[in-house]
């Protein structure tokens, strides 16, 4: 007992690690001992262990040093000591990437690999494969083939796994080992069988048909190894996913039957893998789940914590999509809340939150609060996300949930955790107007004592946007102004902006806001001072348009585009001042409002970032093509490529439209799926609609198998400003040359051919860029009545308001403002606000009043714009 306690203490001190304070240079110095003879195996083993420790700790060893140590290590081959020899194998594997001339040990390893000492053979194979490159592979091929079918299991497994690693860089050579691998699959040893199946799959993984054959063959053949079964289940799962995706084949295929049969396998690991696969299939129905869920339910009451964890984790995922299916397990789940393993308990409770009914929420929340501070941040985030989704499911329960969130916000926790809470509160506020006041109050309280600058600025920004529109904006001012006194420069700057927004929005608060802002004029930080000066001056002008342009609406150009434009401007100085209008506008990320945000899917934000910068990437690509250098600035690129062919045809073509102020560039991304053809001089011939004029084609010089290529067509837009839409029929024209599928070497002679594509349409949406107007009312007034057009339409094909809203947004290609794209439930009328910028830089605003009637949806469309033609074009977009 005493010993034990001491050990524990040592561990805490870090004194338990004998390599605690070793140094690279001294260890490498010691490694010279390897050169001495005779060799002292014990001493050398100790030094080699230190070297390995250093490498595994991430120590960087230079090539020269590593090579020296490596060659010293090769001398250890003369010792017969088994421990030392196996350390040498490890050393070779670790240093194979950093030292030079590692092939020096090839023959020594080959000798060990074919030698009599069985315990050297497996490691020798692994070490040999790590130093062998494609050029040397031929020389060891014969030995590898022999090793794969060796009767010693460890040797066979080592050879199979090494081949798998080799197949990553030299697919062609390992392909020739299929026969040996086939033989190894029938081995009695479970590991050999598993590894052999793995190798067979990796050799064929690029050939879907061959994989299907492999799976069909082995799912009939009874395998011994549970691991091999797991692999088969995974392969079946992948194949089923592809089948469902491409051919819409439902789950009555033999592969699904195989997975279902695995549910009755005698090994738990196979049963779990099968249940996991069924649950994760993209379009599983309740019927299919019915077979998998009982198995997981059984695991929930297993004695093994790993099984319980696996089962609850999977059920938790099921609960996101099919909460009803999991309801049957509620009893088991409630038992798991008190599980001694906190991870299991957390998952149980979050699953219950998803499956639970409105009435059980209060009870669950109590249970959660009792153990919230016993679990790690990572799981706390899972709980928070579950609560967030609960709130959107049962909006009436928001007071309970909001209270819980605010109480956990006060607790200790890391940045990620706090961020999850704040994000949840913000989402709830945005989705549920009733929760707004309470949520804002909680956030105000939080920033009083917030150590994370990022969160504080985020909340201040939100307050600036939402606060002025609440019934009593004045109560937020105190919280906001406190920041100016107490916080760092970044937060103070955000505060100044938030204050200015209150001033710009609420007439009655304007004088006090100006007073508060004036106090910031003497701030120590430049940024804060600059902002304050700017806002004070703007607010004092008392002009609506100034306020809305410079305070409420913010900067709407793309940041990358602005940087490039400014750089360009400074490189070529001119007399004319810089024009912000020439900068491409920021593409508002397109988020589908119907999409239910699932907790745990952190992907959401990432895709937004990509969408925002994609246009900048296109702009860069286009400007590098000399033909398009003088078209001016790229105004808009269409968001998603349009498929012009079926997905499984010989040639796949998709189109992206790039709009410039007087031109449209059609970008055709083509790929050739025939491996015995090379296409050359590929162009897309377009038959233009009225008024459009095809100017130029930029051909794709060569389109070999499976390598995407791009061809462009430049079209001049009609002079008549109201003529903007049209349909183009397209034909792919090219010269075909037959080629050898293996080498890709084309014949000299080719012949011309063409391939008819689907039509490309240019719609109003292609001329309009989405722009977010945070305060639509002010912008609406600002544009004024001058170019207003109004019309009433009956949309007979639309059955619901949501459908109508989605379609209008799609046709107009504009950004919905004021969250008007979300139709409150149970209403029969709705007003949609859209904002955008038309090609040429004219603002366009649309107000669509929708009413639901028996004969569909009636719409009164009002368009305002700074240009009469633009109003006309926009008004005709829906027809």
């Amino acid at each position, binding site marked *: 007992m005493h010993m034990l306690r001491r050990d524990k203490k040592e561990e805490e001190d870090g004194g338990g690690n004998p390599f605690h304070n070793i140094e690279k240079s001294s260890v490498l110095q010691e490694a010279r001992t390897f*050169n001495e003879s005779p060799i002292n195996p014990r001493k050398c083993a100790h030094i080699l262990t230190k070297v390995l420790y250093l490498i595994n700790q991430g120590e960087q060893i230079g090539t020269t040093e590593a090579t020296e140590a490596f060659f010293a290590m*090769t001398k250890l081959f003369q010792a017969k000591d088994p421990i030392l020899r196996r350390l040498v194998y490890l050393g070779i594997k670790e240093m194979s990437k950093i030292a030079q001339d590692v092939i*020096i040990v090839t*023959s020594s390893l080959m000798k060990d690999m074919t030698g009599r000492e069985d315990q050297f053979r497996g490691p020798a194979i692994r070490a040999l494969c790590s130093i062998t490159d494609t050029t040397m592979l031929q020389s060891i091929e014969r030995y590898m083939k022999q090793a794969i079918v060796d009767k010693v299991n460890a040797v066979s497994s080592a050879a199979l796994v090494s081949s798998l690693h080799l197949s990553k860089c030299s697919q062609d050579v390992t392909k020739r080992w299929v026969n040996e691998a086939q033989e190894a699959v029938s081995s009695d040893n479970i590991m050999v069988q598993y590894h052999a199946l793995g190798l067979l799959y990796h050799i064929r993984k690029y050939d879907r048909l061959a994989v299907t054959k492999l799976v069909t063959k082995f799912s009939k053949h009874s395998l011994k190894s549970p691991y091999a079964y797991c692999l088969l289940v995974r392969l079946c799962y992948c194949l089923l996913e592809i089948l469902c995706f491409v051919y819409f084949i439902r789950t009555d295929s033999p592969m699904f039957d195989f997975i279902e049969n695995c549910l009755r396998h005698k090994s738990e690991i196979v049963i779990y893998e099968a249940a996991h696969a069924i649950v994760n299939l993209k379009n599983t129905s309740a019927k299919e789940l019915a077979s998998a869920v009982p198995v997981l339910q059984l695991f929930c009451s297993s004695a093994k914590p790993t099984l319980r964890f696996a089962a609850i984790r999977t059920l938790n995922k099921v609960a996101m999509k099919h909460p009803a299916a999991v309801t049957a397990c509620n009893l088991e789940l409630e038992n798991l809340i008190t599980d001694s393993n906190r991870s299991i308990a957390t998952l149980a409770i979050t699953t219950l939150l998803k499956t639970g009914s409105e009435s059980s929420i209060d009870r669950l929340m109590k249970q959660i609060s009792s153990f919230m501070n016993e679990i790690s941040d990572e799981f706390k985030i899972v709980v928070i996300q579950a609560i967030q989704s609960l709130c959107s499911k049962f909006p009436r329960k928001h007071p309970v949930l909001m209270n819980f969130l605010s109480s956990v916000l006060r607790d200790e926790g890391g940045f990620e955790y706090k961020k999850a809470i704040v994000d949840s509160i913000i989402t709830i506020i945005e989705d549920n107007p009733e929760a707004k006041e309470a949520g804002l109050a909680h956030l105000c309280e939080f920033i009083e004592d917030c150590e994370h600058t990022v969160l504080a600025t985020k909340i201040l920004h939100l307050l600036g946007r939402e606060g002025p529109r609440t019934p009593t904006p004045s109560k937020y001012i105190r919280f906001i102004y406190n920041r100016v006194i107490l916080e760092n420069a970044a937060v103070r700057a955000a505060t100044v902006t938030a204050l200015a927004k209150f001033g710009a929005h609420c007439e009655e608060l304007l004088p006090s806001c100006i007073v508060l802002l004036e106090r910031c004029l003497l701030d120590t930080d430049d940024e804060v001072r600059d902002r304050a000066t700017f806002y004070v001056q703007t607010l004092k002008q008392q002009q609506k348009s100034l306020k809305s342009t410079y305070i409420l609406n913010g900067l709407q150009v793309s940041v990358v585009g602005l940087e490039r434009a400014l750089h360009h401007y400074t490189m070529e100085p001119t007399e004319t001042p810089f024009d912000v209008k020439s900068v491409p506008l920021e593409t508002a990320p397109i988020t589908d409002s119907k999409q239910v945000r699932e907790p745990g899917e952190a992907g959401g934000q990432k895709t937004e970032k990509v969408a925002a910068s994609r246009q900048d990437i296109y702009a860069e690509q286009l400007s590098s093509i000399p033909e398009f250098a003088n078209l001016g600035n790229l105004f808009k690129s269409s968001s998603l490529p349009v498929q012009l062919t079926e997905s499984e045809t010989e040639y796949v073509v998709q189109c992206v439209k790039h709009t410039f102020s007087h031109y449209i560039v059609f970008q055709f991304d083509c790929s050739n799926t025939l491996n015995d053809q090379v296409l050359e001089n590929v162009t897309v011939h377009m038959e233009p609609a009225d008024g459009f004029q095809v100017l130029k084609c930029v051909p794709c010089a060569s389109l070999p198998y499976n390598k995407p290529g791009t061809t462009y067509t430049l079209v001049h837009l009609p002079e008549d400003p109201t003529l903007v839409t049209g349909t183009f029929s397209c034909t792919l024209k090219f010269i075909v040359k037959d080629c050898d599928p293996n080498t890709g070497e084309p014949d000299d002679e080719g012949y011309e051919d063409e391939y008819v594509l689907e039509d490309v349409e240019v719609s109003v949406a292609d001329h309009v860029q989405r722009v977010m107007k945070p305060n639509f009312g002010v912008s609406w007034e600002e544009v004024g009545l001058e170019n207003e057009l109004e019309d009433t339409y009956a949309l007979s094909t639309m059955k619901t308001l949501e459908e109508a809203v989605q379609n209008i947004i799609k046709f107009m290609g504009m950004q919905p403002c004021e969250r008007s794209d979300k139709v409150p439930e149970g209403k029969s009328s709705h007003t949609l606000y859209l904002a955008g910028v038309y090609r040429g830089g004219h603002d366009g605003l649309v107000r669509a009043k929708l009413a639901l009637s028996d004969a569909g949806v009636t719409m009164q469309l009002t368009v305002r714009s700074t240009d009469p033609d633009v109003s006309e074009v926009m008004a005709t977009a829906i027809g």
Partner: protein
Amino acid sequence: MGFLSRLAEIMGFKKKEANLLVIGLDNSGKTTIIDQLKPEDKRSRDVAPTVGFTVDRFKNNSLQFTAFDMSGQGRYRNLWEHYFKNCDGIIFVLDSSDKLRMAVAKDELDQALKHEDIMKRRIPILFFANKMDLRESMTSVRCSMVMELEKSIRDKPWHICSSNAKTGEGLHEGFEWLTDTLKSMLNDK
């Protein structure tokens, strides 16, 4: 080191150890020579070109040899120098039937002799004029003249003998010389 082994060392009973470095051009018969020195049951039947090196241990009279059998292929020759430091003796194998590449062999030898780990030490060098069974092969005397051994090796003991690695002919004579030289050098120390 235990007391007994130290005692044995003092008494001179202890088995002496020596590291040998086996070098020479590719296809001259280095691996075959080493193979021939091993006991009959441990020999490998087919000899493939060595990649890098292999280590072998064998006994001759009272000396225990550890031989580093280096690859002779052109691109690996520059790796020989890593093993110069600790060798007690060098075996340089010549293909006596390959008159054309004798000059290359001489070049490699001169380079090795110029290396600082070899130059300063008085280590014995044994030459095997291998493949004596072939008709176009040169005698050992002719080989040493072509290689200008007299001229290039002045401060080290050296010896050349004809051999046939396939049958083992001549190997014994060469190793007798090497063992004697090494033993006398060890005793001098």
